[in-house]
Structure formats: C-alpha cells, structure tokens
C-alpha cells in the first residue's frame, strides 16, 4: 500500500494506492492523523480511486476518521470508489454519514462549496 498526501487550503487529500486491509490499516491511520496535524488541515478527502482491494478495515478507517474529525468540526468525503468498494462501505451504512463523490475534483467542490453558496445569496 502507498499513500500520497496533497494539501489544498485546509483540506488534506489522502490518495490511497494498493490493498487496504487490517495489516495496512494501522500505518495508514497514523499517516492520515499525523498529516492532518502537520499540515494543519480541517477537512479530509479519502481518495480510493487506486485502491484495488479493501475489506472491513476500510470501513474502520472511514468511520474512525469521521468520528475524530467531527470532534474538531472537520468534514470528510470519500472519492473514487469502485462498485465493489462502494458495496463494502454501503454494508455498514457509511454513506449515510459520509458523502461520496466520483472524484477528488468533485469532493473539493463539495467541501469548498459552502462559501459559493453564501455568495449566491
């Protein structure tokens, strides 16, 4: 597994590549939490476009980050799920609390969308 972190304003984008299982979950979780701190980010995008295997450990990663970010007023969005990954996350009802977007670009729009809404009014 490999993770590439990108920062857009106060949004951290974690592009995860490879297999997301129990073995890889701990370093991934630490990496995300540390990067959020180091780059002083408030919101998080989990980019799963290049994840080619994921079990319930992925549900744990998503829900765990959601709980953590909720406490600090941050938001999380999941981008680029394949049909299979979407099925696994859906079993746990992940999308009833975490929004999903087709790609990182739309996820950025969603998380940055609030200001645009204000201007329209």
């Amino acid at each position, binding site marked *: 597994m490999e993770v590439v972190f990108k920062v857009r304003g106060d949004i951290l984008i974690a592009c995860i590549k490879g297999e997301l299982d129990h073995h890889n979950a701990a370093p991934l979780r630490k990496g995300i939490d540390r990067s959020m701190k180091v780059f002083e980010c408030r919101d998080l995008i989990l980019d799963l476009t290049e994840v080619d295997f994921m079990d*319930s450990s992925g549900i744990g990663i998503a829900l765990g980050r959601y709980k953590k970010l909720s406490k600090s007023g941050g938001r999380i969005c999941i981008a680029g799920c394949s049909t299979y990954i979407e099925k696994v996350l859906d079993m746990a009802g992940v999308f009833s609390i975490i929004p999903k977007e087709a790609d990182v670009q739309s996820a950025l729009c969603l998380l940055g969308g609030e200001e645009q809404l204000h201007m329209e009014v």
Partner: protein
Amino acid sequence: MENVLKMEFSALAENEAFARAAAAAFVMPLDPTVEEVTEIKTAVSEAVSNCVIHGYGELCGDESFAKNEAPTIVMECALEKGNRLTITIEDKGVGIDDVDQAMEPLFTTGDEEERSGMGFTVMQSFMDRLKVRSSKGEGTTVIMTKYLDVPGEY
C-alpha cells in the same frame, strides 16, 4: 472434479494478503469472474484477520497469545462437484462467547476506533453460506461455501 488445498501459517497480519492470494489462485483454473475472485479474497481476508485480531489477540503480551506458543491459522479450500467451493479457516485462540451476537452487523468487541463489527456481515454477503463454530478457550472455525458461476464438471 475434487481438489483440496490445505495450509497452515503463522497468525501474523502480514500473512493475510498471502492467504487471500492463495485462495484466489486456487479457484483460478475454473476461470471465475473478477467479482467472484474479489468476493472470495475479501471473505478470506475477513476470516483470517479475525483470527489474528480476536482469536489470538494482536498484543504479544496478551494472555491468549502467551498460551499459544506459536499461534497458527489453518486454511482449507475444497472444490467439489465442479463449482462448489468450501473455505474453512480455523484458529485455536480464545473462542467466541456468543456466536449469534458476534455475527450481528456492527457488533464488535474490538477497538471502537478501528473495528466496525462488519466482518461476518461481509463474509455472509460475499459467500453463499457461512457457518461459525466456536467454543470458549478452544478456538473458532469459520466455514464458507460459494457456488461459482461455471458450468459444472461431472
């Protein structure tokens, strides 16, 4: 056609990828669909990681770990009647108190931060049948059956 694969490996997280790859390789000669392979790999990953996380406990200082000097997991894949795949995954760990409760979606005795309690639900939805046998202090055996979408070979 009857074909069997039996393997025993150390109960280590780094062996989870190996176990699911072995199960995938086992069914490959039947020319399964990409979905079938993914479902089998995911179900195996759930069962094997449960043995590592819950069966033996991840911490080496854990009571259950100390009892088992070299904890291992046994996986058996069997192919019968052309398309019936049975995967059995067994540990000799702590066992489960209440199997029915453990199998409920979202039930977990693990760390709330990391575990979602969805492992058994994932196994159930990706395989056609799931049976769990467990007794306290003896270990846990998970038996999963899947009927592959291939013309039967009799």
